[in-house]
């Protein structure tokens, strides 16, 4: 079983994707998902993610393979946007289907920690009419370090 890993350059429908994923893995008792969306908190007006084609998708695919090697999953989905987004738009969707709940939680958690700190994306936010590049946070590295 291979992971379903996609770099999306246009908006994706997270509910439809998750519905399809859960339906495709009905032999799994549990599906854990993480949806990251552009915060609609009034502060950020737009968000843009940049990727580097030769590295970004191959890196996501390698992450998918690493997650599948580490936990016994029935299915793994990793979708990540690139390009311009507005508040409320989905940025990332990770879903793990497993017979055992704990495996699905750990796999989704691990995938997110590594997407955040290791994937080849660069993010900038527009606030008050001004674009600003988002620096990686120490927290992101710490999250990843939990996995040894």
């Amino acid at each position, binding site marked *: 079983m291979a992971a379903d890993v996609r770099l999306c350059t246009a908006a994706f429908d997270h509910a439809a994707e998750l519905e399809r994923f859960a339906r495709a893995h009905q032999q799994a008792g549990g599906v854990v998902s993480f949806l990251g969306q552009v915060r609609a908190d009034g502060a950020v007006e737009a968000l843009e993610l940049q990727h580097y084609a030769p590295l970004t998708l191959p890196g996501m695919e390698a992450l998918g393979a690493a997650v599948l090697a580490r936990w016994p999953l029935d299915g793994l989905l990793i979708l990540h946007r690139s390009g311009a987004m507005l508040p409320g738009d989905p940025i990332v969707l990770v879903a793990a289907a497993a017979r055992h709940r704990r495996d699905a939680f750990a796999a989704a958690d691990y995938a997110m920690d590594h997407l955040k700190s290791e994937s*080849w994306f*660069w993010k900038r936010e527009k606030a008050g009419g001004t674009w600003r590049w988002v620096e990686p946070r120490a927290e992101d590295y710490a999250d990843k370090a939990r996995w040894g």
Partner: protein
Amino acid sequence: MARLLFLGKLADLAGGAEREVAAGPLDQVLAALEPDLALALLDERVRTALNGELVGERALVLGEDDELAFLPPVSGG
């Protein structure tokens, strides 16, 4: 000629996402850039990819049509 690619905030500093440069040793290529840009590119947290493959070595010689990408720390998800 060779091509430099600037990802993320490096593109703002360079005034564009890419730049044509004369082929040759990387240190000479960098020496010909604006000093603040060259300094930013030499930051140890900036990784490089030559023709789409990560390279650890900075003692590169850029050949004709080579593409060298400068990759600052990532911030995804």
